[in-house]
């Protein structure tokens, strides 16, 4: 998928940019050749894929306990002299390791390969009516921070799938349920309903999953230029990070409490 996007942008990136920046092209001269570089391509890819990657995470985390129950191996694990809490924590760590590996792989393909294919230059990001330019030397650390944040965001999905996995004896249920919950909550997070804006949305984990983009928004000086090494709203990112960590803790704790009481009948 990443390679398909990269190939498309390599051969017809200008058309893509013209389409994306049609509202700005009348007012500004846009140097398309400079803008279309590895950093922007990686940003486009991450925007596209970070919506779909939860599916890959749910596939593995939803299967991690339910799959064992389905195979009949869960009872062989539970009768070993290991506490159920430890067994479950190790299983959750395995889900997180998979999530990290997935993101590292994405980073290699989306960022490193894009940098090789398209080269590097200043990164231009369109935000509503504002165009932000981040200097080439100021981009890479933002990607590392974004990938770190995405690890926590996707681990939240993993924790949800993991919790549902404890209640099931086959993988389909937890996987489908996780995806359904993520889709419904994402729609709710994106809808502009004043009633929900300040009451429900701040507490939905899906409202915080895309906060990684905040690492690419810099503070600006008096002339409207981005100040290198700054983040526009770090407290908001940290707050989102805190909400996601709370969700992970809650999901995993609920999974452990349920699993400790569960009769293994599979």
């Amino acid at each position, binding site marked *: 998928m990443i390679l398909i996007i990269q190939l498309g942008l390599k051969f017809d990136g200008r058309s893509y940019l013209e389409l994306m920046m049609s509202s700005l092209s009348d007012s500004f001269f846009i140097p398309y050749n400079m803008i279309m570089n590895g950093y922007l391509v990686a940003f486009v890819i991450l925007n596209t894929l970070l919506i779909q990657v939860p599916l890959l995470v749910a596939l593995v985390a939803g299967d991690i306990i339910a799959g064992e129950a389905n195979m009949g191996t869960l009872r062989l694990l539970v*009768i070993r002299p290991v506490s159920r809490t430890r067994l479950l924590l190790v299983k959750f760590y395995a889900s997180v390791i998979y999530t990290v590996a997935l993101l590292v792989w994405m980073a290699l393909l989306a960022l490193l390969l894009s940098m090789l294919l398209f080269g590097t230059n200043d990164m231009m990001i369109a935000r509503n009516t504002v165009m932000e330019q981040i200097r080439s030397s100021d981009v890479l650390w933002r990607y590392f921070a974004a990938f770190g944040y995405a690890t926590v965001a996707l681990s939240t999905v993993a924790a949800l799938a993991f919790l549902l996995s404890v209640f099931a004896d086959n993988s389909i249920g937890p996987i489908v349920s996780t995806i359904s919950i993520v889709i419904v909550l994402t729609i709710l997070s994106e809808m502009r309903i004043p009633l929900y804006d300040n009451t429900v949305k701040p507490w939905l984990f899906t409202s915080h999953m895309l906060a990684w983009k905040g690492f690419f928004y810099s503070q600006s000086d008096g002339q409207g230029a981005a100040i290198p090494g700054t983040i526009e709203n770090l407290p908001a990112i940290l707050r989102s990070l805190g909400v996601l960590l709370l969700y992970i803790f809650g999901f995993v704790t609920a999974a452990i409490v349920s699993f400790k009481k569960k*009769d293994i009948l599979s």
Partner: protein
Amino acid sequence: MSPIVQVDGLTKIFKDQEAVNGLSFTVYPADIYGFLGQNGAGKSTTLRMLLTLIAPTAGEIRIFGMDLRTHRREVLRRVGAVIERPDLYKYLTGWENLSLFARMSGLRPDRRQLLDQLELVGLAERAHSKVGTYSQGMRQRLGIATALVHDPDLVILDEPTNGLDPQGIADIRNLILHLSHHRQKTVIVSSHLLSEMELIAGRMLIIDRGKKITEGRVDELFNPAETIVELETADAEDTAMKLGRSRWQPFLRERRGSKFLLKMDKAEIPVLTRELVELGIGVLAIQPRHSLEDYFLTLTTANQHVDAFTA
């Protein structure tokens, strides 16, 4: 001799269904303890409670003198088990499965230890084949190897001969006897096959619908002289009427279509045969039976079944 397992008043209720009801029994060291009951009698539920897979609703389990609730890990360190089918990781080899479960038991087994276990169950030659390519019997034996890999004192095997061919059944039987006689393991083995239990068990518990029917030494539980005889005749209605009026009426236990089950001494079978002919009953077949179901019939009183013939 201190018991290895002491179970007192064990009860398990699933929602509103009572799977095990007030079960009590004791298992002594180096014994092969048979756990006999028909399908759905509560055998697996009881064994799962002994392994902490299922939490009891009531009752107490002590293994090696320790309360299972408070000493779970200490107990499980000394217990090996195979519950129902030994579903191992099919994409791993036998060797890898064994190594994995050894490590989960807190061991770092060397090559020799793993090989010994695989040799014990006759799988050394297929050690490096994927478990997905194993036959049912081989998987069963590998399951037993994973149960033995940490050298437990107590081995619990739930229906280990299920789905095996006669040779596979004999292999498992010999393995269980070897564990008890040569390695001094205490073995609890469940089955719904009375004949299997008679061949290996020293003591036996028989349960039905979650309740204990009887417990004791196998040679004391069964009266070798007494049996259930199955009689098949040409005219079932005529036979029911004539038997109902004859001196054999108290021996009748059950009628199944054209077949009748009678409980009697084996020595009386020739007398029965002769008198059936004298009564003018056309006998198609007469043979002693030996199943768990028949054993349950020998435990019931005659009055419970007479109605079926006199109504």
